[in-house]
């Protein structure tokens, strides 16, 4: 054996050596046992503590810390890659919560509330299409693990906000969006909402949105998982309290940022 001398050795007569080994074994296995009990107790605490929106609170707390860190790092200059048209793939319309109530497109309007006790502004699709038109071919990432490349056309949420948010008022911290029947709703941090790739989209693959993709107006927010890309938006509220979120209440991360 080479280089063994780097590690300590104990040379003892037979009887003493056996006793020494027994002593060290007893100590080592006792510590191992205590560590195992400690580890299992910690695991029990992590996984069995009282739940906060379906997640034991220690884990919910870490999800929120992860979200805060990601929010701090989030930047308008960090972009989802964009692709050429030949890279477009099939996009599975996934999830129909909030789309089950029949909708007459001619009756649709977008209700916008900016601030407490602020009057509700009612907008038509033409108000959105009048904003600068942006086309974008980006990756859409579902929280289930699949992804697709899709071509979206719409108005930047930041352009929308600049146009319809009350001038001179400080921008709120969060945005809440819901379907007209309020069966589906998402909460967004303002930084993600104002990201240059966040669109209020009205076209998918060059055509008006189909019902399953969220006609007449949906959110496309590449800095978030698909669950935040709400379809068939009926109302938008600018708020200062972190708003509720459909999937966050089902045990998912509230931030859900990419």
């Amino acid at each position: 054996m080479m280089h063994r001398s780097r590690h300590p050795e104990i040379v003892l007569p037979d009887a003493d050596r056996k006793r020494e080994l027994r002593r060290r074994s007893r100590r080592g296995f006792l510590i191992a046992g205590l560590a195992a009990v400690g580890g299992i107790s910690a695991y029990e605490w992590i996984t069995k503590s009282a739940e906060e929106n379906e997640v034991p609170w220690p884990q919910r707390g870490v999800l929120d810390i992860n979200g805060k860190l990601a929010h701090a790092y989030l930047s308008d200059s960090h972009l989802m890659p964009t692709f050429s048209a030949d890279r477009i793939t099939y996009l599975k319309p996934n999830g129909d919560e909030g789309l089950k109530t029949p909708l007459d497109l001619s009756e649709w309007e977008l209700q916008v509330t900016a601030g407490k006790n602020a009057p509700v502004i009612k907008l038509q699709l033409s108000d959105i299409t009048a904003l600068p038109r942006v086309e974008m071919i980006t990756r859409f990432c579902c929280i289930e693990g699949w992804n697709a490349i899709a071509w979206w056309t719409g108005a930047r949420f930041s352009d929308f906000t600049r146009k319809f948010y009350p001038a001179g008022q400080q921008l709120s911290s969060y945005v809440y969006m819901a379907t007209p029947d309020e069966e589906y709703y998402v909460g967004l941090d303002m930084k993600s909402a104002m990201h240059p790739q966040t669109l209020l989209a009205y076209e998918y693959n060059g055509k008006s949105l189909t019902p399953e993709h969220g006609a007449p107006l949906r959110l496309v927010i590449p800095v978030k998982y698909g669950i935040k890309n709400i379809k068939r938006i009926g109302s938008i509220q600018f708020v200062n309290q972190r708003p509720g979120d459909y999937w966050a209440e089902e045990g998912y991360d509230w931030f859900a940022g990419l």
Partner: protein
Amino acid sequence: MPKLTLKHLVAVRWFHWLNFPLLFLMIWSGLLIYWAYPTYYIGTLHFFPKSVFAALNIPSRLAEGMALHFFFMWLFVINGAIYIAYTLISGEWRYLVPRSWSTFRDAWYVVLHDLHLRREVPPQDKYNAAQRVAYTGIVLMGIGSVLTGLAIYKPVQLNWLTALFGGYSMARLIHFALTMGYLVFFVIHVVQVALAGWNNFRSMIIGWEMIDEK
């Protein structure tokens, strides 16, 4: 005369025994996540058949898996990072990294020897050549898992990292393949530990082992 020798330093034993349950939890929660889109296969071997998921009670626990994965990732990364730093600073890395290309040849000879296909075994230090390759490889795999994990966790904020691994889908595939690699490592490791015997296993708990000097 036989003597007691300190084989595994106390810090290394803690790193190892913390890493074992942490990596297990990362793999387990990873499977809860992977279930939601289990698309990988080799030929007709599907990862994994529905029956496997059902037997392990994995279906419909995506949210739970994500919450666990993004909790334990911190502990896994912190423990791994301190281990690597400790190994470098203490000089223990000298026993662990392949010394030259011949280490890979020797590792092959060790494998043949262990399979009873070769009589002689190459001379070794604390670890044999196969162990050096395996224990260095597993650390590199760990680094790979963290980096590919980040690439699919934040493909916008860290889009350069995602691109480095060949894009989102490729990064996810590598992340999964590394996980399967851990399972292979685990099986071989446990078999080898069982074959090496109690004195060797005990030294991973208490640090000391009885050596018969010839």
